[in-house]
């Protein structure tokens, strides 16, 4: 039996420590990991907890991230709880196995500390890795601070392992800005957390030798399409379970999570739509704009996948202009948020001005003043009733301004 870890009502933890404690409390059977900056401390803290007797499971140090996720796939298929952590290049190396995990319907939890992708090599935070894996068939949950990284990591196990879901779950947090920033965190005590997460329920366990099964089989045109369609169907429908788990978590802790996060959107004319820590900074900018008489709000996706299509339509139904802020190099088109938000709006019959800002790549600081400039642009467009600034701009870029369309 693992030792109980003495926790204060309020701890000062960075996002990595918060995620590590959530993993410790989740009674994971197998963590297979290969540490990489900036998620290294998750793995390091977890292995220390294990060495000190606070974890009952096994920790497998592997030789690459591809093997880390492969180890988790094997453990999960064998019928036990498995999780790991990664970032950036490590995440990229995992991608092949991410698709295996979701296709095999294995409820693995992956804590992703978001970091830029090389080249040029950069260890700081942006959302390139999140965007790389967003269509891998995993549920994607997004946090904005260490408390949320902790909460969502605990909830990830409940969501993925639900018998109506059985899909792997990623929990994202911003590299350094969240992962290495210590803030107040109110953890659950070990027994409460353990009770909330519950026992792992094996499904088609390979270790159940009385009922032999095969995982990861080959299906050609006869069955592949049906498998992928069913996988998509269950991912789309997982929103029901996500909402149930969010509701139960709120009952226990008072902390409320919703698939779409909103701040002052009830009467907003203009909105910033962003992911990660920028969401909270944008709240400060929105409040300052409201003092100047501009009705500003903030929207974010707490659940990136499954994409909360209807909720996004609803929350943006009355805005005049919205700025989508993508923290990933768009590679020859608009940013992901611009494309997905525009599609949701158009399908809902709405045509507010939608702008796209590429920002914060490789950890470039995103200041309150920059976010206020975005609101100023939006205000101009809202008043004009059309885009009076370029549709795609680069925020905080040094040198000559870069914009398209």
């Amino acid at each position, binding site marked *: 039996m693992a030792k109980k870890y003495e926790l204060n009502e309020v701890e000062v933890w960075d996002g990595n420590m918060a995620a590590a404690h959530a993993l410790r409390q989740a009674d994971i059977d197998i963590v297979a990991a290969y540490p990489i900056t900036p998620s290294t401390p998750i793995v390091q803290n977890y292995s220390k907890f294990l060495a000190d007797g606070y974890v009952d499971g096994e920790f497998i140090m592997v030789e690459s991230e591809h093997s880390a996720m492969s180890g988790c796939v094997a453990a999960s298929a064998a019928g036990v709880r498995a999780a790991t952590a990664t970032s950036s290049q490590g995440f990229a190396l995992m991608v092949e196995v991410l698709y295996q995990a979701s296709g095999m319907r294995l409820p693995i939890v992956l804590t992703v500390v978001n970091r830029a992708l090389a080249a040029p090599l950069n*260890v700081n935070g942006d959302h390139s890795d999140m965007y790389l894996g967003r269509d891998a068939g995993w549920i994607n949950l997004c946090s904005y601070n260490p408390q949320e990284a902790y909460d969502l990591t605990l909830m990830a196990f409940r969501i993925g392992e639900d018998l109506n879901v059985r899909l792997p779950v990623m929990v994202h947090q911003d590299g350094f800005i969240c992962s*290495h920033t*210590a*803030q107040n965190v109110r953890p659950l005590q070990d027994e409460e957390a353990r009770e909330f997460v519950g026992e792992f329920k094996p499904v088609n366990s390979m270790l159940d030798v009385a009922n032999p099964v095969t995982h990861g089989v080959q299906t050609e045109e006869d069955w592949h399409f049906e498998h992928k369609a069913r996988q998509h169907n269950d991912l789309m429908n997982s929103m029901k379970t996500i909402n149930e788990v969010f509701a139960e978590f709120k009952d226990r802790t008072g902390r409320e999570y919703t698939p779409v996060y909103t701040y002052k959107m009830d009467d907003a004319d203009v909105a910033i739509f962003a992911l990660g820590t920028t969401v909270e900074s944008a709240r400060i900018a929105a409040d300052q704009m409201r003092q100047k008489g501009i009705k500003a709000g903030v929207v974010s996706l707490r659940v990136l996948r499954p994409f909360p299509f209807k909720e996004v339509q609803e929350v943006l139904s009355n805005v005049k202009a919205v700025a989508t802020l993508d923290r990933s190099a768009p590679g020859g088109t608009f940013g992901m948020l611009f494309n997905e938000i525009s599609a949701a709006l158009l399908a809902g019959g709405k045509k507010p001005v939608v702008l796209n800002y590429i920002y914060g790549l490789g950890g470039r600081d995103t*200041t309150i003043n920059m976010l206020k400039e975005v609101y100023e642009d939006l205000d101009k467009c809202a008043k004009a009733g059309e885009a009076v600034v370029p549709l795609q701009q680069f925020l905080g870029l040094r040198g000559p301004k870069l914009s398209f369309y």
Partner: protein
Amino acid sequence: MLEIRWHSRAGQGAVTGAKGLADVVANTGKYVQAFAFYGSAKRGAAMTAYNRVDEQPILNHEKFMRPDYVLVIDPGLTYTADITANEKENTKYIITTHLSKEELIKSQPKLEGKEVYVVDCMQISLDTIGRAIPNAPMLGALMKVSGMFDLDYFKGAMKKVLSKFPQKIIDANMAAIERAYNEVH
């Protein structure tokens, strides 16, 4: 919102100091943030660490800061780092040096006219802890200059933060904090 910027060399304990301060302040019911600029800095490289303290949850994640206090824990950085960057009119400077305040300002004229306090955290940490880890004494100096907590309360709170260390190390840190508290001027 109270904002603090630390100037340090990687390995001198600025991050630990910033986190220790955050721990003590969070115990009083306030909200805190402690972070640093890392990059791929190696031991000895100039770096900065930061604290924010507020009565409300801290939502600001920008790295940009106009500090209320600038804490310089390596003497050389007074001359090689931009310690007055983004200062306010009333930014207070607590600087590690073996020089007198007058000598220091003469040697670094951009500190002229500013509220400057000096304390020799290097010598204090060598004398008390036995190593050049100037973070604990700087916290003692900050307590004196800011009046954030009285010395006994702060020492008590830091003992809890350091509780996983051997008693000898805790005692040495307490001595460093107290000496810097009394010597900063």
